[in-house]
């Protein structure tokens, strides 16, 4: 099911370039973006100050900046775990202008309060904008760095959102993103399916489709990024019970936002899910594990200083000659 939905993701965006006559009909909306906004509004109030999972992912993502010699005077930070990212970004001297964007106004308000409370001694100019990743309100060639931490997996048109980020970057700008991958919450996926089969005699999607690792590289090259890099990390979080897992998802704003979601969830089914989750996956110490697979993506906007392969067939020296040359030397 996951792969099929991802396929339709691609199809929806490719059809947009071919003909516009039926584009409104063929547009597939997998996620309800408005619902996601509301969920993130709620998460702004529920989210603890230091969520360990979000902080680990944010630190891991920003670690990549340490490996880069280039400095980034202006940065754009998109949705997802904003607080963790902005807090650690602000401590860097190299970033002079930081634009923080999210679809949820309450989330930004919280970040802004956090920013004012920190009594910033540093000179990072921080600006807040409510915006949608699918309709990026950022000028072309204006920022040096785009960071998106756990936000892009909720976009209907992931390639489109990445292309817009690419356009917003200056030449030789860096795109850094972390999204949740297909292995995420596999335990919950299984438990939901089994419980629904048992109680309702059929299944409906309860957990959203997510991108697979092998698609991430394709997404980067498709969006036109150079020197793409993809790597994967799996985190296992232990909870007291499945109900606490759901509470955590709610506090992160990561609950189901499928546009064709069955809004009815019977109490019976929910309890059965928790029971099945517990009996199938509980570890010896009584806790239940949940897997979070995070895909980290890195890409650069094209610039003449970057290394690139030569044109095919442009070689003038045979490999055989090289071998004899070096063979003689040694």
């Amino acid at each position, binding site marked *: 099911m996951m792969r099929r939905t991802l396929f339709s993701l691609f199809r929806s965006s490719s059809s947009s370039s071919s003909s516009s006559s039926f584009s409104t009909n063929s*547009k597939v909306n997998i996620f309800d973006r408005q619902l996601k906004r509301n969920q993130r509004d709620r998460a702004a109030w529920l989210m603890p100050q230091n969520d360990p999972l979000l902080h680990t992912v944010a630190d891991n993502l920003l670690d990549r900046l340490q490996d880069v010699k280039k400095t980034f005077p202006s940065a754009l930070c998109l949705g997802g775990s904003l607080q963790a990212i902005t807090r650690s970004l602000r401590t860097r001297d190299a970033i002079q*202008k930081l634009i923080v964007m999210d679809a949820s*106004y309450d989330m930004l308000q919280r970040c802004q309060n956090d920013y004012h409370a920190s009594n910033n001694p540093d000179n990072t100019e921080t600006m807040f904008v409510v915006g949608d990743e699918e309709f990026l*309100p950022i*000028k072309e060639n204006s920022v040096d760095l785009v960071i998106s931490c756990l936000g892009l997996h909720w976009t209907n048109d992931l390639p489109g959102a990445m292309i817009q980020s690419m356009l917003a970057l200056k030449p030789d700008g860096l795109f850094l993103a972390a999204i949740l991958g297909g292995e995420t919450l596999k335990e919950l996926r299984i438990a939901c399916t089994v419980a629904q089969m048992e109680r309702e005699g059929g299944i409906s999607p309860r957990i959203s489709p997510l991108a697979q690792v092998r698609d991430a590289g394709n997404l980067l090259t498709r969006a036109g990024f150079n020197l793409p890099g993809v790597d994967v990390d799996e985190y296992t979080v232990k909870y007291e019970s499945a109900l606490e897992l759901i509470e955590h998802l709610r506090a992160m704003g990561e609950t189901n936002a499928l546009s064709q979601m069955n809004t009815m969830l019977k109490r019976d089914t929910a309890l059965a899910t928790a029971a099945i989750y517990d009996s199938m996956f509980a570890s010896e110490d009584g806790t239940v594990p949940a897997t979070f697979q995070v895909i980290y993506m890195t890409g650069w906007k094209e610039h003449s200083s970057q290394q690139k392969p030569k044109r095919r067939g442009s070689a003038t020296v045979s490999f055989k000659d090289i071998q004899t040359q070096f063979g003689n030397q040694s």
Partner: protein
Amino acid sequence: MVRVSKEIMQKAATLLSDFLVCPLSKQPLRYCEESSSLISDTIAVSFPIKNGIPCLVPRDGKILDEEDASKPDNNLYDAVNEENKGRNS
């Protein structure tokens, strides 16, 4: 107090001219002091500024023309989707 608000205004002005564009047409935005909103002249839509935070989600935008004002916001969203697609191609 006045100095502070001036600073904020200046900041907003640089933000506007350096980074922000209309999310749909990607054309420059104009700040309207009267309604304290950002106006995209190319598609005649105004985006509100709440507590110093500009809201540039297409759904938050309001069509400015009198004759179009009666239409629900959904139409804007769809029309604009179409436009965005045209731009991408």
